């Protein structure tokens, strides 16, 4: 009996330790984002402090001129957030339009080379992004897509489209074929079956897939770093925050919190779909 209690104590202790390691950095960065510069650079680190919103005010440029400890330094972080939302949402939308019919076809039709095509699509998951960006950079410069929303939404398909196709295929396979057969017997044509029978059944799955793929688009850094100048996504803007040369950790912390809030909000919304999506392809 004593041994059982001891094991249970050790196990619980280990779980607390793992949770601490996973959660502490995030808690710490949230704390930092509410500290004043002096508190952040203090050693030993400060765990109790008077919270301030100054960092967020500087980040979004809503502080009165020279009212902050950074003087006249200007930061523009609101635009990158908007950029990221436009690019990610646009990429998800385009992927849904192109990917859902493809996912459906891969689930329901038999044709020669089907598995090859599916595997080829999965292969994009492993594409070395930089290898595509180097030629793309010149191409974009040449046709004027460099630093445009349209161009970014297009290259983001490299990440979002294969994922949507793959997830959509697995969701369609979960729907019994018999439902479609019944509709076919009633005389419904294929496009009708897809729009009126399959799509409504697919909707919860697609919402989850869209959330997850939005998350992946939000994560991306390399594409924005190389292919944009003004229309930079959040991740690239974060890196630029480190550049002013002065100790800018407090404002960077606030930026980090903003860049992390969106994914965390999304997983709370789409929790049920997350595990299937995060293990993309590895588990069905």
């Amino acid at each position, binding site marked *: 009996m004593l041994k059982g209690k001891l094991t249970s104590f050790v196990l619980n202790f280990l779980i607390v330790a793992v949770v601490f390691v996973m959660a502490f950095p995030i808690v*710490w*960065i949230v704390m930092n984002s509410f500290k004043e510069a002096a508190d952040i*650079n203090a050693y030993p680190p400060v765990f109790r402090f008077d919270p301030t919103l100054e960092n967020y005010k500087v980040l979004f440029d809503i502080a009165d001129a020279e009212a902050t400890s950074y003087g006249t330094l200007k930061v523009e972080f609101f635009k990158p957030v908007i950029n990221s939302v436009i690019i990610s949402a646009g990429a998800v939308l385009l992927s849904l339009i192109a990917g859902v019919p493809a996912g459906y076809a891969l689930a329901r039709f038999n044709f020669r080379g089907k598995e090859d095509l599916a595997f080829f699509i999965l292969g994009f998951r492993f594409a070395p992004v*930089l290898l595509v960006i*180097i030629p793309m950079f010149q191409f974009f410069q040449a046709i004027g897509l460099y630093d445009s929303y349209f161009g970014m939404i297009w290259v983001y398909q490299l990440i979002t489209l294969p994922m949507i196709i793959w997830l959509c295929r697995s969701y369609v396979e979960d729907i019994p074929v018999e439902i479609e057969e019944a509709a076919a017997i009633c005389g419904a044509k294929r496009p009708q079956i897809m729009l009126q029978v399959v799509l409504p059944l697919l909707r919860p799955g697609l919402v989850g897939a869209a959330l997850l793929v939005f998350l992946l688009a939000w994560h991306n850094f390399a594409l924005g770093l*190389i292919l944009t100048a003004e229309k930079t996504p959040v991740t690239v803007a974060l890196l630029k925050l480190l550049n002013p040369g002065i100790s800018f950790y407090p404002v960077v*912390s606030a930026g980090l919190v903003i860049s992390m809030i969106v*994914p965390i909000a999304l997983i709370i919304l789409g929790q049920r779909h997350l595990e299937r999506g995060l293990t993309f392809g590895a588990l069905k």
Partner: protein
Amino acid sequence: MVREGVKRGGSGRTFLLISLLPAILILGGFILLFFWGFYQSLTDMRFGRASVDFEGFGNYARLFGRGRFWDSVSTTTIYAFTAVACEAVLGLAIAKLFNTRTLLAKWCRPVILLPLVLPPLSVALMWTTMMNPETGVLNYFLSFIGINNFGWISKADTAMFAVVFIDVWTFTPFFVLIIFAGLRGISPEIIEAGRMNGAKAWGLFLKIELPMVLPYIILAALFRLIDSLNQFDIIFGTTQGGPGNATNVLSISAYFTAFQNLQFGRGAAIMIVNWFIVLISALVMVKLWRYTRKRVS
């Protein structure tokens, strides 16, 4: 048969074509770019210079003759294989831990997924602020156990450890997720049968559980290995390849070659080599996965 009717209607072929076409067009465009990138690697293309000469494998020959390039090759493989090995071991341990019937295990499970949903670049910058040798909170914790002024990403001999550490923190949850699914898939009867035969806890784990989750571990390792061999965000966000040459993996080296020195041809050549390493590693892992899966069934 009704099923046949649904599968092969008269209008089926057109419908199939129309539904696949947009996706194939978009993805096909990327394939063309990939081939163009390969062509670039065979030229002396520089950005901003009009003349481009085809020079066969000249870029590759020049790369293979440079010690710096081979340093990058070994840095890339060391980074990826160390990170994935640590993640596999920790992932297995944590999955086992959270598969116990402990009360906290159920409540805390969402927390361990957290690192996976954050942008890798944000994660990299987050650790950068914590790894500051003078004021960072990590060195504050280390000072309790008598380690002072650990260099983390600022010193050449600790930088590799630091970036691998960040990779491990971020992606161990991926292994946990997949191994967890593997553990859940083992039927209780098999475990019970093992216990009847007098196997102890460790014996059960080594003889039954481990072989059965091994295919899952290798599958997760395959996915992570490919990503880690291509890793760009975490290293760019922390060391940018430095200090000196310590973490200069191939993708970072290709970025600076192409976009700072503007040698597009050579940059593309570095990425082709990177892609080749990814391909070979992936094929080996797939072989290994097939082998372990066959042994289980």
